[in-house]
């Protein structure tokens, strides 16, 4: 469906991986990131028409963890605000919908995660079917390795050399990112507001997300039909993209995504380094959207695809298509 309004990403900021976040609480980690994104957009704290965030109580180890980070937003006078219990990419989706309703012209979207507070290998097992899967504690690396083996068997991936140190064979330690703490923020704006805030806005030409059944034994692990469907709905296949930011927290999963998204050698994939360079869980997907937008802001891309994922073995996938030209100005 054609959206009734043009909406763009006009600002993007994320926490530095220089140790400056060490010892910070989540609000403290988030604060400089929010301030930078708002500065880029020329907004004061609390000034955005809508605010939406993504994070996870399980990652933080405490219920209602997102309530404290509201401190960094400057939510006074009270703001129109919402929260998704997942990666911030879905917060961006909710904010995009809000702007489409016409109830907001600008939105602040942010995400925060401190995976190093706990052990993600344990924590993320709690996402699984509580009767059949979670009691076995299969960590995300194990599940990704099952996916990798299926890819090797299907001839989509090379068998890794036997001599290398394996994390979970057939995957090596280097096939996975080290979890890092982080925060990211994006500002969305509609139409002329976006043009005022940003010289070269990254217009959201389409965005969609789709889920699959969870049980790995029910799925073809070598494919990602939900990614393909989301990409179709987002209009990704209508024209070639020059850039793709993929949320693949494992090398083998990037193989699955490249196939599902039909990315060939002409596409620059993960110029930011992608999720393998840094995986601030619950933030990583929003960073993909932000990095793709920033490429457009800088003039390095005209049409970029951004992808975010959630759940085991790429269960739930979001795809956005960003362009330097809005809908109304095409052709």
């Amino acid at each position, binding site marked *: 469906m054609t959206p009734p309004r043009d909406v763009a990403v006009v600002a993007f900021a994320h926490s530095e991986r220089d140790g400056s976040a060490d010892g910070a609480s989540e609000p403290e980690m988030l604060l400089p990131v929010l301030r930078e994104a708002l500065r880029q957009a020329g907004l004061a704290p609390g000034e955005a028409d809508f605010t939406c965030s993504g994070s996870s109580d399980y990652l933080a180890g405490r219920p209602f963890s997102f309530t404290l980070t509201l401190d960094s937003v400057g939510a006074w006078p009270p703001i129109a605000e919402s929260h998704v219990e997942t990666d911030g990419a879905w917060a961006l989706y909710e904010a995009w919908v809000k702007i489409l309703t016409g109830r907001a012209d600008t939105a602040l979207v942010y995400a925060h995660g401190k995976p190093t507070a706990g052990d993600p290998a344990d924590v993320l097992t709690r996402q699984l079917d509580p009767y059949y899967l979670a009691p*076995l504690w299969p960590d995300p690396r194990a599940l990704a390795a099952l996916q990798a083996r299926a890819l090797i068997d299907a001839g989509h991936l090379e068998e890794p050399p036997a001599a290398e140190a394996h994390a979970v064979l057939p995957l090596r330690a280097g096939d996975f990112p080290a979890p890092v703490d982080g925060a990211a923020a994006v500002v969305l704006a509609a139409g002329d507001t976006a043009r005022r805030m940003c010289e070269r806005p990254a217009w959201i030409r389409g965005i969609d997300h789709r889920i699959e059944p969870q049980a790995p034994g029910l799925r073809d692990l070598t494919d990602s039909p939900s990614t393909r469907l989301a990409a179709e709905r987002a209009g990704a296949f209508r024209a070639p993209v020059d850039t793709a930011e993929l949320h693949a927290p494992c090398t083998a999963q990037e193989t699955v995504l490249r196939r599902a998204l039909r990315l060939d050698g002409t596409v620059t994939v993960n110029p930011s380094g992608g999720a393998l360079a840094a995986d601030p869980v619950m933030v990583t997907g929003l960073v993909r959207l932000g990095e793709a937008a920033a490429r457009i802001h800088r003039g390095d891309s005209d049409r970029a695809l951004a992808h975010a994922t959630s759940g085991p073995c790429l269960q739930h996938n979001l795809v956005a298509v960003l362009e330097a030209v809005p809908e109304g100005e095409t052709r």
Partner: protein
Amino acid sequence: MPEILTAPLTVSFPFTRSLGPVQSAFLTGLRERTVLGVRTTDGRVLVPPVEYDPVTAGEIRDLAEVAPTGTVTTWAWNPAPRDKQPLRTPFAWVLVRLDGADTALLHVLDAPGPHAVRTGMRVRIRWAPERTGAITDIGCFEPYEDEPGEDETAAGKAGAGEDRAREAGHRPAAPHDGVFDAPVTGIVTPARLDYTYTPGRAMSRHLAALAEHRITGERCPSCRKVHVPPRGVCPTCGVPTTEQTEVGPHGTVTTFCVVNIKAKGAGIDVPYVYAHIALDGADLALHARIGGIPYDEVRMGMRVAPVWTGDARHPDHFRPTGEPDAAYDTYKELL
């Protein structure tokens, strides 16, 4: 700058899960060394069985028994088992399509090493000696060679393991009513997660001062309000706060309740008074227990001071100072 505090934080609970009809039949079946699947509207047999068809979303209840033997559809070698995982020694994670099933079950395979595991290999269930009706009643899978003669067709193709597997997989699942004596209707799934908690920089500063029996807040550079405890940011202005300021130690009870039920694990006898206290110089109230006065004599407006006991960082409670009560108008904005 004081060091950043950290402390272990454990989140642990034995969750009690009610099962519903399909999970109940499947898990009770495992207790009885019987593996059940469920038939979908299009005739596939799903193992493990689910309550709702993943394609049509329709309710599915048509159970069928499958074999305890099956074929590995994909696998991963885990050289370093974690505490809560089913086996102590290195093992393979496997998806196994049991004979008679159309989908695969996730579990673990006990094998001497990755060289002994491959996709398509035949495996069978090794039952846990003690079974309670849980997915862990399957202790693990183990490699398995089909007995010659067990399956004539397969025996005729000796050495062609995958063909044999394919044949075995065609063995139809047998309808099953899912009825067992003493069905399992609920399971307990303990889950313990360990975290390292840090309260952050501002709170670490505040807590360091508390250890010296000083109560500190931070002043917002914009609205000039003093927040106690400080969080490194002014929550209304959204700007960083850095200016430390000492508040109290005396303060005013703005409001309170009398707690008559004992919290689990809390070493406080009931009844006790839980009060909001606006410390002199602070622009919002903090929360603390009131002591040194009968619970039914605590009043709004009462003046109080902190009492530290032992080596505790936090005041144990606040006690009346004996000053005249504060007039309502002086604290009503802090309610």
